[in-house]
């Protein structure tokens, strides 16, 4: 009989049909749905995460794996109505005011979603006030901002200042990225983190949510 290893391998290969098939067969043979999720589907996505980080998988392949995993989760949900897929945390993401470049930001959003985060993608050209609003509404763990232009990167600081003014800066972690951004710049404007690429951004989010104080986090 196909086991967890098969399931995780099918996720890794982005083989949706096989994921559905193996998930069903595991559930039918009485395996605990939580084990199917954790030992099969999520284990598969974790392997994907490692390979992506090491430049051994392409983005479209990761997306196929995520799609396959989600298909598996749907099968579990069908069997067990009350089941909710665990989320690693909530992320609000957008490009800053004046910046229309969303391909990198969308990549990051996709990779975070694939890794198990709940992502609120605000889009492009987001005013500081809009970020503040989104934080109030979604109560995320992380606010992620991107800028591709050296002329718009300066607006990151404004957004952080707006969060401070609204008394929200301590309640979220702010991370930034984009071609012109450096760690120094992140430090300078008071961001909590910087990631040079999509794989590291996901990694960074994982570290930040692991490190968050459980007390005081809006839930």
């Amino acid at each position, binding site marked *: 009989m196909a086991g967890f290893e098969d399931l995780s391998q099918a996720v890794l290969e982005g083989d949706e049909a096989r994921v559905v098939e193996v998930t069903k067969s595991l559930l039918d043979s009485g395996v605990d749905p939580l084990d199917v999720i954790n030992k099969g589907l999520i284990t598969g996505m974790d392997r994907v995460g490692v390979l992506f980080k090491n*430049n*051994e998988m*392409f*983005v*479209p392949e990761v*997306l196929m794996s995520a799609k396959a995993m989600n298909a598996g989760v749907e099968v579990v949900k069908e069997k067990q109505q009350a089941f909710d897929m665990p989320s690693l945390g909530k992320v609000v993401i957008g490009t800053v005011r*004046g910046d*229309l470049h*969303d*391909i990198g930001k*969308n*990549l990051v959003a*996709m990779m975070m979603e694939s890794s198990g985060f709940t992502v609120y993608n605000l*889009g*492009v*050209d987001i005013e500081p006030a809009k970020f503040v609003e989104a934080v109030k509404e979604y109560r995320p763990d992380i606010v992620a901002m991107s800028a591709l*232009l*050296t*002329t718009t*990167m*300066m607006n990151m600081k404004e957004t952080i200042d707006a969060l401070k003014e609204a008394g929200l800066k301590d309640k979220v972690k702010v991370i930034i990225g984009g071609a*012109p951004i450096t760690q120094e710049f992140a430090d300078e404007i008071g961001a909590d983190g910087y990631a040079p*690429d*999509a794989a590291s951004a996901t990694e960074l989010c994982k570290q930040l949510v692991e490190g968050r104080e459980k007390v005081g986090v809006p839930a």
Partner: protein
Amino acid sequence: MEYKPVKTFDELAVKSLDDFVYGIAPHPVTAKNGMVIGGGTVYPEINLTLPPMNINESTMPEVRRQYAEMIEGILKRAKSLYAPGIIVEVELLPETTMTPQWGIEINKILRDKMYEYENKYGLKSLLRCTPNDTREIVRPPLMRRGELLENMFTTFEKCAEDGADILSIESTGGKEVHDEGLVTCDIRKVVFALGVLGVRDMRFLWSRIVEIAGRTGSIAGGDTACGFANTALALAEQEMIPRVFAAVDRVATIPRSLVAFEMGATGPDKDCGYEGPYMKAIAGVPISMEGKTAACAHLSAVGNIAACVCDMWSNESVQNVKLLSAPAPVVSTEQLIYDCRLMNEAAADGREFALKMRDWLADSDSSLDPQAYVLRPDVVLEISGELVKEKDPFLATKKAAALAVEVIKRGVEKGELNLSAREKKWLDIISSQLETIPDDEEKFWFELQKELDLNKWRPEEYDLEVAAAKAASAK
């Protein structure tokens, strides 16, 4: 309204591999001051831009100071190194295009200093002015109307009147769809974005730019697929998407970028279009290219091969930041001048040696990356020869992608190109995706519109009707 091409290309302008070489274009372009591009000499094209800073009314004095400092440094270095001539490109930023007055001022600061060096020291130079395609700043963008568009055209016109020698743009029609296609590596969306949206938008845009150039006596340069295939190149360099996908994407941009010349542009084509060699092969226009000496702006796998049939050699873009020696624009100027010296020196020894140099530039890269492989001069002529047989740009785009896959596969088989197993796999995926694209453009649009996010772009701005889609989804 219809925007009809004024030219069609039924056969190759470059007749043989031995005529396909750097410095020489079938249809050279002569500028007002007598400089000839594509007439035997490769010239450096230096691009300059601001360091990280805000641009607004209060920072404009500093903006002016920055450009004045950069152009002085560049021209002084070009003079010290006895450059036979130099092209300066200013890519205006969104802010300096949206407020035409600012772009016009910057254009004038540069041009005036260039006139001064030409008059005082005999240093010949040309200014290429490239306004930003600011239409994409509102989403979904208005492509054929509105204040952004009118300000962009004003910037073109006034800069040309003030002496900008060459007009260019990196237009963005279809970019929203292409971005989606890239991230998911969906060649169907890519072909639609380039062969339908890009082509339609460029016909509109270039009818107007060619008209402005004609009226002001400046040169209509060209329009690169920078926002498209260079995004793919950057993603491939970051190992986000397969290199073969980026290579196929590059070849698929040919019919789109060719539209500028069908509408009456004459070249020199702009630097950041690695599809440039195809433009030269098909339309015979001189081209600017960029490679290793543009590493300051982006890393690539085509550092040498990009030079092998260029007529100008560029640094793509560099910010006015200080390096140990000098500001970065001065550093780029020096590097480009030496690169050009070497190519011109080899060519001065005779055509056979220019061809040798060309082949070394090509062969040093072409086996290592499919994006380099599709720039091999023989590959360029082969694919170009097939593409001129196809009149319809949408079908030509589909064909270009298919030819790219085919040529890359053959290259691997012949041992001329090394590809990892995970790259090879994608050639088959792209092939089978391509097979699902119908030959009827309307039918393709009907199929595809269901998959596209119409919040990001407006079909009517490309003369496309969504009614069919709505009807279909209402069924």
